[in-house]
């Protein structure tokens, strides 16, 4: 599925959920603004942030699974993420920098970096 259709679908679903939230006004339940959203750098509508966090949790869990994390672990991992961390990962798991270490370097990249290493530009292979 292309990124465009995915984000369009996501947009439509967020819209749907938002309008649903407005229509179904929940009975008396104290509306406390949590500390996390009070100190968040981005000012967003609470509704939108809640809906997005809800959506992102599912999205990130599915993405982790598609990158080989098993289902139970993925659920626990997503539950541990803050709203800001969820936003950081949602839809970007394939591009997010993943720390692996120098042992991960293979193929043509290895050759290029080895040459750069020998001329003193990089520092990848010290004492391996």
């Amino acid at each position, binding site marked *: 599925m292309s990124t465009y259709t995915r984000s369009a679908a996501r947009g439509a679903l967020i819209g749907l959920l938002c309008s649903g939230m407005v229509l179904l*006004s929940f*009975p*008396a*339940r*104290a*509306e*406390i*603004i*949590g*500390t*996390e*959203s*009070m*100190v*968040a750098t981005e*000012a*967003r*509508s*609470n*509704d939108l*942030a809640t809906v997005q966090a809800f959506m992102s949790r599912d999205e990130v869990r599915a993405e*982790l699974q*598609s*990158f*080989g*994390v*098993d289902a139970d*672990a993925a659920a626990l*991992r997503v*539950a*541990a*993420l*803050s*709203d*800001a*961390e969820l936003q*950081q*990962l949602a839809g970007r*798991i394939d591009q*997010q*920098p*993943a*720390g*692996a*270490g*120098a*042992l*991960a*370097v293979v193929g043509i*990249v290895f050759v*290029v*970096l080895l040459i*750069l290493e020998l001329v003193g*530009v*990089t*520092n*990848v292979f*010290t*004492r*391996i």
Partner: protein
Amino acid sequence: MWTRRAAALVAALLLTACASSATRSLPPQMAAVELEQTPFFAQADYQCGPAALATVLAASGLEVLPRDLVSQVYVPGRHGSFQAEMVAAARRYQRVPVPLPQTLEAIVAELQGGRPVLVFLNLGLRILPVWHYAVVVGYDPATRSLVLRSGRERRERMSIARFDAAWQRAERWAVTLTTAAAIPASATLQGWIAASAPFESLGQWAVAESAYRAAAERWPQAALPQTALGNVQAAQRKWLPAVAAYTVALKRAVDAGVLNNRASALMELGCLDAARSDLDRARELAPAIAVGVSLQRTRSQLGALSADGIQRTCPQAVRELLAQ
């Protein structure tokens, strides 16, 4: 004579130029330090993330091994670990992951405070990145180098210049782990509360509360720690202590969000008039949209409660609190 002076001047200029590029933002008076007792776990395959995280968790007094962390931070399909998950996993062990200011000085200051620093590095190039987690444990001004627990090296020495370049290519990301009671020297109030607040959202009230109490001690005049303490009480439906904390916060700084939260807590206690007056005050502050949405909801709940015909009396303790 003249030529010797000129030569000395040129040499001095060259030396300063070299020094300033090699010791970027490290003041010369910072003393050598090495946290030798920091444990070391050699990384397996692509798993520098679990190894580096285990190092800082173990250094903070926990018994954790890299293999315990693999299922929490390693992503097989990406052969690596994400920064977001590294800090989230630290929280699962009740450690507060505090981001450091992006200076070498902040790293060395943490070492001098006895805490090793988890860093993210790009050992390759911007276009050919080699992402790596390591733990800085030492600084040696004599050789202008840092000592790291890194990969399969217990004591990897890296010149400041090389470290700085690799760190720069990874956006200068550095994190230190502390218990909720011990705020690092370099932390800002906003930064500490932001690092602790996820505990509240994740329902770990006790950790959040002790982090906020530590903040209230460190910044005794600030409103934010009191607000946060109020929020953690309110989240557990302890409405009276919540109102007490919000009241202290509001005496220090009037804020529409805090007024909204106090109004909600007051409503739960049956103090509808006091809640209404908080909401009226908040409206006059022309709040941001997000806060305005919450205020609107709180007001409609208040309307519903006022119209349900049930007789409520505001407890004496609350009236005394508000009258203070």
